[in-house]
């Protein structure tokens, strides 16, 4: 009786042991996380599939890229708080700077490590209005009129919202010969016309397009063009303001995380893929302005000419702009009161 029980016990435990060892030894596909800002879902879906295919062809390695999307500021804080991103692709350089400074997950000179200041593509901020433009919205001045409802995301969490705000401020400065007080008044009046602040660019698009709230949406050019494609030219149309800001959404490798997870090589290859012709073509297809001059020329037809200024020209860079306007207690906190 005893030997029988013992034999069964031994057999069972060795089976469990074998399965465990096999489980540990089995290497599934290599996976890493790309933490991105809000409007890039479709773009990265295509990029990830193309990259996985390329990687398999080149090195035989199966790669799975996991995504996370949300307002840029919110995502940056999630990474700082411990979200293990091997790669970050956010809406503005300051958010990645914040990760470098606060959590020290990547070096402070991260922006110089990739071409074009680590921006594989650029974009700008434009308006989306209802078909036929019933409220006759042509430029930033029309956004402050009473009775106009403006949809923009929340500058405290979203990158698009901060670019919007600075574009409006820049426009007001130009119009009023650099008068900061008048610019502040202008932006205050715009925000008084905002009924609801979504936490990200995509949320704002949903509010405008699907919930039918608002007369004008101020958002990424790529998001506006995508919305027109998805919803149809018979429902919405784009309006390009007379002046907008050159928006540069950067990407970066998060050194501490890739070293911890052993994904440095594949993450670096992923970022370089964004600059390859194939990656740039995908960007152009998704309405981002590709950085590569050849691809840019090929996709020039789908983009309008916009008068652009850069954040360095008007605001002295992101560090200054963030501290003045968007930090806790900054100008946005002072001027924003929910519209009644």
């Amino acid at each position, binding site marked *: 009786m005893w030997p029988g029980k013992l034999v069964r016990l031994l057999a069972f435990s060795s089976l469990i042991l074998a399965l465990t060892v096999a489980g540990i030894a089995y290497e599934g596909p290599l996976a890493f996380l790309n933490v991105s800002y809000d409007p890039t879902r479709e773009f990265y879906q295509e990029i990830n599939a193309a990259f996985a295919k390329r990687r398999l062809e080149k090195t035989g390695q199966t790669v799975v890229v996991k995504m996370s999307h949300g307002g840029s500021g*919110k995502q940056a804080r999630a990474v700082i708080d411990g979200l293990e991103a091997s790669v970050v692709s956010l809406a503005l350089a300051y958010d990645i700077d914040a990760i470098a400074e606060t959590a020290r997950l990547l070096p402070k000179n991260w922006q110089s490590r990739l071409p074009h200041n680590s921006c594989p593509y650029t974009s700008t901020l434009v308006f989306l209005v209802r078909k036929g433009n019933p409220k006759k919205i042509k430029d930033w001045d029309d956004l402050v009129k009473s009775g106009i409802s403006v949809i923009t995301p929340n500058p405290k969490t979203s990158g698009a919202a901060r670019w919007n705000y600075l574009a409006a401020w820049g426009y007001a400065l130009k119009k009023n010969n650099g008068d900061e007080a008048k610019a502040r008044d202008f932006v205050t009046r715009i925000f008084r016309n905002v*009924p609801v602040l979504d936490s990200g660019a995509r949320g704002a698009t949903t509010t405008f397009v699907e919930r039918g709230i608002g007369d004008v949406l101020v958002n990424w050019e790529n998001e506006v063009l995508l919305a027109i494609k998805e919803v149809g030219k018979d429902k919405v149309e784009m309006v390009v303001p007379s002046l907008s800001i050159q928006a540069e959404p950067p990407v970066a490798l998060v050194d501490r995380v890739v070293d911890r997870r052993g994904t440095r090589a594949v993450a670096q290859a992923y970022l370089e893929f964004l600059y390859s012709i194939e990656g740039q073509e995908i960007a152009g297809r998704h309405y981002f302005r590709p950085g590569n001059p050849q691809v840019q020329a090929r996709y020039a037809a789908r983009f309008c000419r916009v008068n652009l200024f850069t954040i360095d020209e008007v605001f002295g860079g992101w560090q200054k702009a963030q501290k003045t306007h968007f930090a806790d207690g900054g100008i946005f906190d002072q001027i924003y009161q929910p519209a009644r």
Partner: protein
Amino acid sequence: MALVFRQRSILPGFGISMGITLFYLALIVLIPLSAVFLKTASLSWHEFWSLATEPRALASYRLSFGASLVSALLNLVFGVLVAWVLVRYSFPGKRVLDSLVDLPFALPTSVAGISLTALYSRNGWLGRPLEAIGIEAAYSRLGIVIALTFVGLPFVVRTVQPVLEEMDREMEEAAASLGAGRRQIFTRVILPTILPAVLTGFAMALSRAVGEYGSVIFISGNMPMRTEITPLLIVTKLEQYNYAGAMAIAVVMLVTSFLMLLVINMLQRWCSKRSGG
């Protein structure tokens, strides 16, 4: 700490059961809730008060508690009606109807939210006729009440049903034979019996409605000062990493909900005492 019970009770192990119960309650309920209070302890009274009573927060309290009250009252009336029909009548499809009552429990709140929004939005089946007569159901306060009524439906029905089933029909017949009219039978015999259960169901529907988040955020439009419920305001503040503000509002909600439940509990006990059982 000495045990109070020294005599041998029929069910052994009072000490250990009490210990496990307290531990479990502490872990699941008390400790997380006290964390909220502790976080706000770092604020001064003045700061706490200004965070908790800013206009946007006040508007959200009015909306959350107001809409919850309306929906719980609706559920109270219709819940009793549904329970009555399910207990006292038999008809084809009764079992199906009975299971349908449990549907709001089983459905994930986001599914409920999306379905209701699709139904009541401007192009939806019910939304279109309502819009024709000028009622905007989705993205308004009415939409919030609709969503809260939906999620609170099973509570009153399920608490009243067993009481109605157990009720002695003979009492009603006796009352009738003593000359009571139908309304008198209802108000003097049936209602006092089911009132504690009705109040329990009401309390549960109210609590569920106050805490509801998933189904409301789809249908409400989430506009601050107008259609923003308190749980959403808390989440928005957290997203902006304004922990202090979020916690202050959370504490207000916590305390108010607790007081509400306390009042309803006392009401229940009073009703039980009055009806003698």
